[in-house]
């Protein structure tokens, strides 16, 4: 096979599609893998943060003198120890790490201490005297939009905010096409509903943690659990006034991120403490700190109106979405408004969105940020319309499904997408026909996510024994080192166990965007395949030299160089091992590399089916059966694709049923722990069945699409639709905790 014909490969894979063991597996099952809090270095100090107990206050003064007198204390830092930033987004992120002039939420960092032990640091932090002028606060989106609401910062709104909004409203977006008012006139039935969703947390099990050190020469080292070590450097270097290359950031193993570790919290603080104390400083958040002061997702308040004909055709659809994203402006609302109607082929569609600031922590990304809460509302109304019109909810979705050539609700025309195939798979699955018992209901929902491309670097080194070391720049949050090794092995034509992939630090591999947007298998995959091709080019050249033939007369097949035909000469294949063994004699070490700036990640759709049983006397919802259908493009390592589908579904189940940020009237978070922030436990769940569809993405050499995020989108509506049918009352607020469900059942009479 000629290389030029192998630009795209969709079948005949030898390694892609199998389920080998992950390269970091042994370390992880033996307890040897090192996560953020697992590193200790000699002469290390421990940091602790003093946090505001007030949701909104002016910081009048900070007096650290008593703290500095405490045993073991070596340094105290406040916002005065960081460089002011010119860009709003940078300054916001810095101000979120350390409050400047104003404490904006319960848990907002105000000062930090480094001491010999964690206990000493905590005790000293408690001795820092902060004088606050307490200001009125607001934590709920509907309150924050009221004309007389307390204002967090004035002057932060974009210029296009419609009149009548207060200064807490920072972003306003509009998407859609057609004429919704005209469309509603053609409808036989219009359903209009108002929905709310609570803020949820990514709930990664590993708290945020890092170890920082700074030399007197201004060089810094940071060990950190993060989804993007270059991102950490992009923030920390300017915050500390360092040149980027003087700050080397090494990512630890990461104990879960889900978007929550795509920004910084402790990292600049640890560096500042290290700078001031002259010693390495370790910082680890407690679970309470993780909940109070990292970045949960937005909460939402949305009105949706959809019109449908008697036979199930949607004539018009409109959504008004309002997201609160915490104490600083954020753009998640745009993603919500873009994704709300993405699953549908609509003539008349409009999505309007407002972002609102409140006295809550600055939101961070959470798996398909903005999409789950938007699509929940739309899929709920589509379900109610189907129910009221006596139509099969799956057929209604098929009738209106977006497909190739559909002008999407957010503007562009879709190319190859897999929604119809995914819906058909659900329709033909035995789950959809299985009988239901009393108090049971079945729910369905579509989901959508964009998936991203972006920048990633890969170096592929051929060792003298012919094995391969791949270095990439994206922290592995879900098994990506396995899929990257597989793609390298596939392309090189060698066994999987001859390849080992590691994640390099910021100074040992080129820039790589954060591990987010379901982009790693896609983008790093492209870079890996191209790096492998680069190495193959070198190896073919070496073989050509040895054979004394033209480089173009050599092909690469099954891990060996071969002459391209009898005209090229009669030589037995030269294996990679042989080429590698002779590398130093034929021209030096062999490597390939590629720095990708990739696009065409390919959007992905999923459909979830769920059966629930609702206890009419307590409002308790039991998940009986769950099936996920999702288009994965090509599944490189199907077990980890299934894992993404299952994990996203279960996070969505938690969001639908029990997870929520609960603020008291005092503006304080009431449930900052795993006891009362209730993520699903093993006994809450059935097995999560998966059906992977493989509709190749033309934008990737092997057809890969991102798979990580779409799976959290459908569960919210799927479960809400199932509960609504089981309880025979429409639920419009998440989470559907038992008190809320029982109240709805009782109100129905």
């Amino acid at each position, binding site marked *: 096979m000629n290389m030029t014909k192998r630009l795209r490969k969709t079948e005949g894979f030898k390694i892609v599609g199998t389920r080998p063991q992950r390269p970091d597996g042994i370390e992880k099952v033996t307890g040897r893998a090192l996560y953020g809090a697992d590193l200790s270095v000699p002469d290390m100090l421990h940091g602790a943060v003093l946090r505001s107990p007030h949701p909104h206050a002016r910081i009048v003064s900070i007096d650290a003198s008593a703290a500095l007198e405490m045993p073991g204390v070596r340094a105290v830092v406040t916002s005065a120890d960081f460089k002011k930033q010119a860009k709003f987004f940078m300054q916001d992120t810095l101000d979120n790490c350390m409050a400047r002039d104003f404490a904006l939420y319960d848990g907002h960092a105000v000062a930090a201490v480094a001491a010999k032990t964690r206990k000493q640091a905590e005790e000293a932090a408690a001795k820092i005297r902060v004088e606050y002028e307490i200001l009125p606060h607001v934590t709920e989106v509907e309150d924050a939009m009221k004309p007389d609401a307390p204002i967090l910062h004035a002057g932060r709104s974009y210029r296009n905010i419609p009149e009548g909004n207060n200064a807490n409203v920072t972003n306003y*977006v509009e998407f859609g096409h057609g004429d919704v008012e005209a469309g509603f006139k053609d409808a036989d039935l219009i359903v209009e509903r108002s929905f709310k969703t609570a803020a949820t947390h990514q709930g990664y099990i590993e708290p945020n943690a890092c170890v920082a050190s700074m030399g007197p020469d201004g060089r810094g080292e940071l060990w950190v659990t993060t989804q993007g070590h270059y991102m950490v450097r992009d923030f920390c270097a300017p915050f500390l006034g360092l040149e980027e290359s003087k700050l080397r950031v090494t990512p630890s193993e990461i104990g879960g991120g889900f978007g929550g570790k795509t920004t910084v919290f402790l990292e600049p603080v640890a560096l500042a403490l290290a700078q001031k104390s002259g010693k390495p400083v370790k910082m680890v958040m407690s679970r309470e700190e993780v909940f109070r002061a990292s970045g949960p997702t937005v909460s939402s308040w949305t009105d949706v109106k959809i019109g449908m004909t008697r036979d199930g055709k949607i004539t018009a659809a409109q959504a008004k979405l309002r997201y609160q994203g915490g104490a600083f402006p954020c753009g998640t609302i745009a993603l919500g408004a873009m994704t709300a109607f993405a699953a549908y082929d609509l003539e008349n569609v*409009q999505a309007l969105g407002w972002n609102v600031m409140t006295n809550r922590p600055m939101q961070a*990304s959470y798996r398909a940020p903005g999409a789950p809460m938007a699509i929940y509302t739309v899929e709920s109304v589509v379900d109610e319309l189907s129910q009221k019109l006596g139509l099969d909810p799956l057929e209604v979705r098929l009738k209106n499904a977006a497909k190739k050539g559909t002008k999407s609700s*957010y503007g562009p025309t*879709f190319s190859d997408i897999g929604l119809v195939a995914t819906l058909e798979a659900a329709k033909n699955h035995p789950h959809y026909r299985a009988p239901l018992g009393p108090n049971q209901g079945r729910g369905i929902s579509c989901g959508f996510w964009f998936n991203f491309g972006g920048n990633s670097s890969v170096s592929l080194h051929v060792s003298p024994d012919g094995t391969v070391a791949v270095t990439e720049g994206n922290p592995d949050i879900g098994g990506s080192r396995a899929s990257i090794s597989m793609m390298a092995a596939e392309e090189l034509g060698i066994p999987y166990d001859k390849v080992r992939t590691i994640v390099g630090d910021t100074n040992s591999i080129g820039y790589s965007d954060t591990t987010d947007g379901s982009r790693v298998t896609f983008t790093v995959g492209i870079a890996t395949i191209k790096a492998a091709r680069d190495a193959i080019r070198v190896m073919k050249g070496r073989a050509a030299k040895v054979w004394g033939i033209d480089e173009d007369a050599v092909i690469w097949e099954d891990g060996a160089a071969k002459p391209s035909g009898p005209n090229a000469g009669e030589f037995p294949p030269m294996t990679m091992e042989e080429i590698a063994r002779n590398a130093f004699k034929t021209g030096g070490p062999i490597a390939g590399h590629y720095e990708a700036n990739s696009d065409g990640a390919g959007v992905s759709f999923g459909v979830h089916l769920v059966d629930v049983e609702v206890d009419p006397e307590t409002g308790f919802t039991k998940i009986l059966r769950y099936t996920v259908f999702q288009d994965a493009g090509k599944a490189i390592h199907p077990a980890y694709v299934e894992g993404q589908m299952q994990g996203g579904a279960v996070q969505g189940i938690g969001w639908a049923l029990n997870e929520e940020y609960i603020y008291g009237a005092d503006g304080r978070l009431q449930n900052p722990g795993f006891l009362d922030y209730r993520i699903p436990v093993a006994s809450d769940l059935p097995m999560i069945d998966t059906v992977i569809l493989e509709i190749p993405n033309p*934008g990737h050499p092997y057809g890969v699409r991102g798979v990580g995020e779409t799976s959290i989108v459908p569960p919210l509506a799927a479960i809400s639709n199932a509960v609504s049918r089981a309880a025979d009352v429409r639920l419009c607020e998440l989470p559907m905790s038992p008190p809320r469900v029982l109240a709805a059942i009782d109100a129905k009479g």
Partner: protein
Amino acid sequence: MVKVTLWGSLRSATGGLEQVEASGTNTREVLDDLAKKYPALETVIAGGVSLAIDGTIYKDAWFTPISDSSEVVLMPYMAGG
């Protein structure tokens, strides 16, 4: 000329137009021309945008080719989980 569709809330920057014309053969030229013709778009573009070209979403890399027949949609910059 390339026809560029804007997301709704940007219409205030173009005097109410949802679709505008810009000249150029790649992302950079088209965005530069947009910013020149509609100065109110300049800060939006400088802050980072994405472009969908014939259905595929691109971040703001300068040299992605655009032809006059391309479907071009200006979109907000994307962030993910």
